[in-house]
């Protein structure tokens, strides 16, 4: 990997790699050349970071879109230009490194929020620590941003819905049918079903696939799993 930016303060952390065998040199140079061409040609924002979020390399499009010079941005860490709050600021950047990181938000030098669709190739140490990643981000236009926010909100509703479904079923199975709690649990489940139908409708409007059920399947009723066993 070519280090584009000089960072004297980091020099003690970098070790010079051993020179490759002579027969591999031309092959490696060819790969490096293809990487440089890709970096220059693609319209997307492309960068490489190490495990601490330091930029090891980036294309001009990335720096320009954020309003920095490449050198200026090279002195920052990724988590300094990512939107969000976290106790440990490094956690803010971790969603970028999922294989399909979905939509994330960068913050430009002028404070403008830029929503991007992220793809990354990440590497981890044997101990499971994040070691670095090559990230390609596509800037989404305003229409896509709005659709993305709506779709993401709909998807996120699946998290509490899983909890509500599960606990209403557990509650119902823990009491007798004569217990008022049985009826309460059933009502909660039925209302959750209405909410789930709304989520499916929103997702369909956004062109996303429905979730939760295999084709032709139907939702189970509370207590149905006992009958199935």
């Amino acid at each position, binding site marked *: 990997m070519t280090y584009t930016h000089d960072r004297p303060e980091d020099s003690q952390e970098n070790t010079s790699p051993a020179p490759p065998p002579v027969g591999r040199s031309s092959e490696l140079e060819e790969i490096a050349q293809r990487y440089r061409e890709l970096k220059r040609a693609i319209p997307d924002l492309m960068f490489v970071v190490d495990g601490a979020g330091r930029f090891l390399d980036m294309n001009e499009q990335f720096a320009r879109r954020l309003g920095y010079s490449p050198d200026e941005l090279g002195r920052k860490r990724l988590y300094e230009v990512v939107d969000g709050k976290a106790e440990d600021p490094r956690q803010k950047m971790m969603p970028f490194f*999922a294989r399909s990181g*979905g939509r994330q938000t960068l913050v430009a030098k002028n404070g403008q929020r830029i929503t991007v669709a992220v793809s990354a190739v990440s590497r981890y140490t044997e101990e499971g620590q994040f070691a670095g990643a090559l990230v390609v981000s596509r800037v989404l236009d305003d229409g896509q941003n709005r659709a993305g926010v709506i779709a993401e909100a709909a998807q996120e509703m699946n998290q509490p819905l899983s909890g509500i*479904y599960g606990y209403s*079923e557990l509650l119902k199975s823990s009491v007798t049918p004569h217990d008022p709690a049985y009826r309460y649990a059933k009502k909660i489940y039925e209302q959750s079903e209405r909410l789930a139908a709304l989520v499916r409708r929103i997702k369909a409007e956004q062109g996303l696939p429905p*979730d*939760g059920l295999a084709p032709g399947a139907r939702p189970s009723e509370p207590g149905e799993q006992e009958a199935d066993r």
Partner: protein
Amino acid sequence: MSGCIRTLVVDDEEIICEIVRDILVSEGRGVETAAAQSCQEALRLAREGTFDVVFLDVCMEDGSGVDLLESIRQHQPDARVYMITGYRVDKEIQQALTAGASGVITKPFRVKDILAALYGTASPQA
């Protein structure tokens, strides 16, 4: 399956870890559960313990569940691993199944989906 079933639940959402654990515990048939809310913690548990069934979120905050699946597989080659996802991205589901996942559970899931995975009666794509 006889004896105690050892399970590991991995999801960065606390409510998902809790409900899956509570569903498993409600079985009361010698099911042991451990939970992790980060890839790092999940890997540590996978290195240190032995699990029969793993429930693994596809999109973790600190990394990809599909990548984590491959790491967990190295330590738990015999475990059945079920991916849990709220996104149902076909490409990722296919990657997970190719990487050795036993099946995929989509959110919002029902109690019977979790129990089908626990007892190995779930279809590859719930």
